[in-house]
């Protein structure tokens, strides 16, 4: 953990981890768990039952046309199906598959490079790409940004992929062009990866190695040169972000004719050491930690993602998901402890905020649950969710949590209003 420097006058600077570790393989897990999100109508995976045989690369969904699906990453049989609610309250079905140890590939993958293929097979690719914006007639997507930067400190997943799998990214970029019809494909990488990135055929842009420059909104502002307004999504602005890992996985899928079933992730131990591993999607976190010789003890934190924006989870039986870029294990004594102390208006958060939000005022309104005023007056929706305000808060207010809560509550209000209309 980076502590306050002796000369507190200088703003703390966070460098991304720019030295990717080599990738090692995790042994094939005995079981995998895939979290199938409930569809619009809340239907579970009725098409599947315990005991059903599944093949590697087989698409599992509640119905063949369902927008939500998972791709089995092993061959075996379904051993359990249970309801699961994720950290943000979304209903899922946890499908546990007992692996047979052999890979028998499913041949359902349709290699036609169309948008339909992307929607039907690649939404569960590692890196969680989303192609829904291309199918939305109200949105005109002009640019795809292949992001070779990480979404958090410590992680090196995308950099690893750019470094080692530039050829797959090249195929992926071509496939993306065909599938989406978008010609302008940018690729954002740190300075030291420009060399492999230029071989991919995308337009290469460099991003500074300081956090949070790798976040999509910051890249939009600094690299694309287009500020996304607080009311719009990235897709509204005509841009879709896809992680470099996802593009490489798509490229490899077209080359090999097999759907991607593995995920690269960075594992950071208590001593801050990092290593990269490749594992099947759905592998229990405990298996990954075991392969990295990281042991958990009572009261540790097990964080999915990175130290600034990740989600702490409660069990090592939970699986690696397509969006899990990292697993950080943190000792209780090292973790930040939030307090309920009031803001003393020191202004550290105001000075560190990358988008110049008056956080000192914002947090007062959020504490008082005045979410609508917080959005209207103090720029709640401008927040890019980097977590730096909480990091520097001398009162140790969980500012980032308040911000996420505020956005969540507002989204509930908006959903309710839309339902009433």
């Amino acid at each position: 953990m980076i502590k306050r420097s002796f000369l507190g006058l200088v703003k703390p600077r966070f460098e991304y981890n720019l030295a990717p570790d080599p990738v090692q393989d995790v042994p094939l897990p005995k079981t995998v768990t895939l979290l199938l999100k409930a569809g619009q109508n809340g239907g579970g995976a009725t098409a599947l039952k315990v005991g059903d045989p599944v093949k590697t690369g087989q698409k599992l969904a509640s119905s063949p046309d369902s927008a939500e699906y998972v791709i089995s990453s092993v061959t075996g049989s379904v051993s359990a199906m249970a309801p699961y609610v994720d950290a943000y309250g979304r209903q899922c079905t946890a499908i546990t598959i007992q692996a047979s140890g052999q890979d028998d590939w499913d041949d359902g993958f349709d290699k036609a490079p169309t948008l339909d293929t992307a929607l039907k097979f690649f939404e569960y690719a590692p890196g969680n790409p989303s192609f829904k914006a291309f199918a939305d007639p109200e949105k005109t997507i002009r640019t795809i940004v292949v992001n070779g930067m990480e979404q958090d400190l410590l992680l090196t997943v995308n950099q690893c992929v750019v470094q080692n799998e530039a050829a797959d990214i090249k195929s992926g970029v071509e496939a993306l062009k065909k599938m989406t019809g978008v010609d302008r494909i940018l690729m954002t990488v740190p300075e030291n990866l420009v060399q492999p990135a230029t071989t991919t055929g995308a337009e290469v842009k460099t991003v500074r190695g300081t956090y949070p420059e790798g976040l999509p909104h910051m890249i939009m502002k600094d690299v694309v040169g287009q500020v996304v307004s607080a009311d719009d999504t990235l897709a509204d602005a005509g841009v879709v972000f896809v992680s470099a890992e996802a593009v490489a996985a798509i490229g490899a899928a077209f080359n090999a004719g097999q759907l991607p079933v593995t995920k690269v992730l960075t594992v950071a131990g208590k001593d801050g050491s990092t290593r990269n591993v490749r594992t099947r999607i759905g592998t229990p976190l405990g298996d990954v930690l075991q392969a990295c010789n990281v042991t958990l003890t009572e009261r540790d934190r097990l964080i999915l993602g990175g130290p600034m924006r990740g989600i702490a989870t409660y069990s090592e039986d939970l699986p690696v998901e397509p969006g899990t870029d990292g697993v950080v294990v943190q000792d209780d004594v090292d973790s930040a402890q939030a307090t309920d102390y009031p803001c003393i208006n020191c202004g550290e958060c105001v000075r560190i905020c990358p988008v110049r939000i008056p956080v000192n005022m914002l947090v007062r309104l959020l504490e008082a649950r005045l979410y609508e005023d917080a959005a209207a007056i103090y720029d709640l929706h401008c927040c890019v969710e980097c977590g730096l305000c909480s990091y520097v808060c001398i009162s140790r207010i969980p500012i980032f949590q308040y911000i996420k809560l505020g956005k969540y509550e507002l989204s509930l209000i908006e959903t309710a209003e839309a339902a009433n209309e």
Partner: protein
Amino acid sequence: MSSQQKLVVAHAPYWHDGSKISTKNYHVIIAALPAVLMGISQYGTPALGVIAFAMACAVIWELVWNLVLGKSMSIGDGSAVVTGLLLGMLMPATAPWWVIVLGTFIAIIVGKQIFGGIGFNPLNPPLLALAMLVISFKGVFDFDEALRHYDLGFIMTYPLADLKAFGPAAIEKFSLGDLFMGRQAGAIGSTFGLGLIVGGLYLILRGYVRWEISLSFLAGVFITALLFNLSDSAKYAGPLFHLFTGYTLIAAFFLVPEDSSSPANFIPMLIFGVLAGVMTVLIRNIGAYVDGVPFSILLMNLANPLLDKIRPKAIGKVVENA
């Protein structure tokens, strides 16, 4: 299935820079030590008594408030200690005990706790107490009168009082070097200019005090005093005299940049500091009071919420034009 450990779940971020309110307040106390020790070495045990009693009283008032209202204990954050220390530094060594009891009551209870405690005070607590005491008990804060039994080997009249009563001719006897080195009559912790500047620079470098406010306050005092002096040097003292006398330096580094009653954005901080400096000299030169520091800063504290509305547009903010 692997053995289950009980894990702690919390929200991001999981890293913190390790800063704490108590650490900050202890650093403020350390930074104030040079000036305080100088005062104690000059005035002896009575000065030590005033400082120690003020700190103790401030903590006790906070404790009483915590107990009476059944709130969680807040004396550990060091805020009450700092308030007591600063109020003690603003008092003459001869201040009677009941003035200290009353002053710390005003600072802690009236100035801070009735607004909701730390972070909610609209005014600077020690300054509010000082202002009310100066208005109520003129004699206690008449330094000429209060320190008449002391002879410390330098001129024992209060420079600002001489200036007010007799004009710049009366202050020619003070050398700037003496004033800067604390060889002047005044409050316990506010006469040793060098010590206050060293302490202040320490706080600024460690990031505990916003340099924008401190420096703009000093600039405001300097420029206004200079303009007065240029317009009529027979009537108004020079800028350096104003910087090194009265409460100017302790205010610049310990009182004006108090967190909750000062702005957090860059331009408001500059306006806040400069205007507080301007008001200070205005009161000293043409106002009724000998030293304008408590009143000028309290006045600017009131303008703080309005000033802090001047802020940069957040990136991505949608401006709705009527």
